[in-house]
């Protein structure tokens, strides 16, 4: 491996804001990428991994960021010194990039065939017929079905996975030496992610492309990386081969990062003897209205039945569009269910008119902690709002809010601060505190840890478990991530296209799935057989 030529060499690169800040935001980064090699840059948000990849592409926003030191050699040519014209040439032929969100990387008013064709039109002298042949061939290589039809399709007519394939086809059609992929699968479902990762790997082997893969997801890393570069807050922490990093990380930070990755090993047993807190029976949700002649309604969920017991964490798992969020919203009537019953502490809440009584018993934690707190209100005001609404005197509410803040490991004196003064993880803890302070019997966590970095995610998951232990609250935990569900759920409900395909104790569902879809989900989860906490492969105990 060591005699293969180096394609990209990042030498001692420092990137600073303009005007220069107190400390450069990326400091002295050095790593090489060889032909046919995949190097993963891993780090949490704010680690500088994306900025580094932008610098390699020469795409740093000129008025706010600049490379202040070091060299970035692409086949021996320093991309920091070349003219803009030469950089454009390099970008097309030598280095290509795949972004996180394929919808924004594609032009919505042009057919995707046209957009791939444009790359050839600008950079080659091929005739129209030759170009078309080449585009269709490339589309076949990225394993798109029915390429003639897709050639004529617009981006919105394709699925997320298909769009990302188009972007990859665009990136690779000129056979670049280096492919930069910035979180290319983060916005995709796990099953699609699996396919895209395999596709990149295959194309890379055929073309001997060097790949720099920027990601926060250690699962993905363990699947595709040859070597790993770990970054933290602008510093390079450690580089090494995949096995070195995953089994014997040298630095504490790497050790912490790796061990924060949830594994697919279920840890909690069901609690069948506890009383039922909520029972959902035959719930269905239909969107749209039935016309006289046509039926344009969409069934977002149907035939949903499951039980949540006291002190139990029930996971609802599914990919986007599976109806899991619809169910979560229906059980507390944020959305009105079309059919079925939701029995909460022995009372069916679907026909009830007085929602206030319901909502005191059920609280909701949203996915995005940046939008679920009113930016204009202090933490204390947000925490006390619910209590005051239910008639708790201001003083009492304030005392309770302070207590709850301490319960989520935030000091009580932050009550006077505004949400923008907190990080994502801290805000999510505040959001949890706001729900817990109401002393509900059921908490609904809708993708509550999905937007968080792995280390923060691990903390929040631990916090939810602590709260469950201390208060005996039940939690309905909605997630797309099987590994997260495996960490804290007692029982699991798997949903696909609005229906429950399988449910049962977490151990059974994850170890012996009976439905094909569950099996597919488990197979697609990155690194299903790596036990990150213990730095070793999973021991299959049957």
């Amino acid at each position: 491996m060591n005699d293969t030529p180096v394609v990209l060499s990042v030498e001692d690169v420092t990137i600073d804001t303009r005007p220069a800040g107190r400390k450069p935001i990326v400091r002295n980064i050095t790593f090489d990428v060889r032909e046919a090699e995949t190097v993963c840059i891993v780090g949490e948000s704010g680690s500088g991994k994306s900025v580094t990849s932008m610098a390699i592409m020469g795409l740093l926003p000129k008025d706010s960021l600049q490379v202040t030191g070091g060299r970035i050699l692409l086949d021996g040519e320093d991309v920091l010194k070349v003219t803009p014209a030469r950089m454009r040439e390099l970008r097309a032929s030598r280095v290509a990039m795949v972004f996180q969100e394929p919808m924004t990387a594609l032009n919505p008013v042009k057919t995707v065939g046209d957009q791939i064709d444009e790359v050839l039109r600008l950079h080659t002298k091929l005739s129209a017929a030759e170009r078309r042949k080449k585009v269709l061939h490339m589309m076949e290589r990225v394993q798109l079905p029915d390429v003639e039809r897709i050639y004529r399709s617009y981006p919105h007519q394709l699925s997320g996975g298909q769009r990302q394939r188009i972007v990859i086809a665009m990136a690779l059609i000129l056979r670049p030496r280096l492919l930069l992929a910035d979180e290319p699968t983060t916005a995709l479902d796990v099953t699609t992610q699996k396919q895209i990762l395999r596709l990149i790997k295959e194309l890379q082997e055929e073309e001997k492309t060097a790949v720099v893969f920027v990601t926060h997801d250690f699962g993905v890393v363990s699947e595709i990386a040859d070597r790993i570069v770990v970054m933290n807050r602008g510093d390079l922490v450690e580089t090494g081969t995949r096995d070195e990093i995953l089994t014997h990380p040298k630095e504490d930070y790497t050790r912490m990062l790796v061990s924060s990755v949830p594994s697919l090993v279920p840890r909690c047993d069901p609690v069948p003897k506890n009383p039922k807190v909520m029972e959902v029976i035959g719930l269905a949700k239909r969107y749209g209205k039935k016309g006289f002649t046509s039926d344009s309604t969409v069934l977002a969920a149907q035939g949903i039945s499951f039980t949540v017991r006291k002190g139990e964490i029930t996971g609802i798992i599914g990919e986007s569009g599976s109806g899991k969020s619809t169910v979560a919203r229906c059980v507390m009537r944020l959305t009105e269910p079309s059919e079925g019953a939701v029995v909460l502490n022995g009372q069916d809440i679907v026909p009830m008119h007085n929602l206030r009584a319901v909502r005191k018993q059920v609280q909701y934690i949203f996915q995005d902690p940046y939008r679920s707190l009113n930016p204009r209100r202090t933490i204390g005001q947000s925490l006390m709002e619910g209590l005051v609404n239910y008639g708790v005197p201001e003083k009492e509410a304030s005392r309770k809010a302070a207590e709850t803040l301490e319960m989520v490991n935030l000091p009580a004196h932050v009550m006077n601060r505004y949400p923008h003064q907190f990080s994502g993880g801290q805000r999510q803890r505040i959001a949890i505190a706001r729900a817990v302070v109401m002393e509900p019997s059921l908490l609904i966590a809708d993708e509550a840890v999905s937007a968080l970095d792995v280390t923060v995610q691990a903390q929040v998951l631990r916090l939810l478990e602590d709260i469950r232990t201390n208060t005996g609250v039940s939690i309905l935990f909605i997630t797309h991530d099987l590994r997260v569900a495996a960490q804290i759920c007692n029982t699991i409900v798997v949903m696909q296209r609005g229906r429950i395909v399988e449910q049962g104790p977490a151990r059974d569902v994850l170890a012996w799935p009976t439905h094909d879809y569950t099996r597919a989900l488990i197979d697609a989860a990155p690194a299903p057989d790596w036990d990150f906490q213990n730095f070793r492969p999973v021991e299959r105990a049957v």
Partner: protein
Amino acid sequence: MTFEPDSAVAPNAPLDLPEMEGSGKGGAWQVLRDVLSSWPARISAIVLLLIVLMAVFAPFLGTGNPVTINPALRLQGSSAEHWLGTDSYGRDVYSRIVYGARISLAVGAGTVIVSLVLGIFFGVLTGYFKWADIIVMRFMDGLMAIPGILLAIALVAISGATLTTVLIAIAVPEIPRVARMVRSVILGVRNEPYVEAASILGTGVWKMVWRHMLPNTVAPLIVQGTYIFASAIMTESILSFLGAGVPPETPSWGNMMADGRTFFLLKPELILYPGVMVSLTVLSVNMLGDVLRDRLDPRMAKRL
């Protein structure tokens, strides 16, 4: 991607909280300081302040009675007694200009208050309640389809020319614009998780609107308010010029221009003085509005 990682891994490790800065959020004073840091805004503010002071202290600025007619002294030039000369009825032009500021500012401020209050009311109503949306907004659409001046003239014709009717006539056509803006903001924040979160916490409708929704409209409303203020002064002048405004003897800049029109060739200053005043006022308000918009709209601010 924008999340800052938590520094603490162990649950009880010290927190990495940013320092408290000032009042915590960009307060009103901060905005004001920011706005007044640019020269155009500073000059506009000074001009406006002078005009306001002029209106408030009109009787003490060496003025005479602005409505006293003196046919013997028609169309005179500048003199020690009449600083800006007299008009076709022999009234003191300087006094009329100074007192005219009262009318213009009253119409501007009155229109802003009336249109904002009613606009916010209808905007909240239509943004929050679907049933109201269908009815009220169709009415608003109809109102917007009629040219504002035409509507104002019709309203004045129906109810007679007093300051109050003129004010209402100018304010009514502005209401749909304000209502639409408030409605769109409310619709936008309705599905924000923090609004849903508040409803889960049992927050009632009006508390919800007041606490969680209306604060989002403040910035765009301030900007809209400045434009309404400017355009109200213009409209008042136009109405007066057309003879459909405040009663002719009232000293208003529009009335003065209307009177001066007949003697334009003989004495163009009669139009020039009030015209300059209207332009100065409107220009200053608009400039302030622009700077405010840039300051309050983060998208615009980035481009600057």
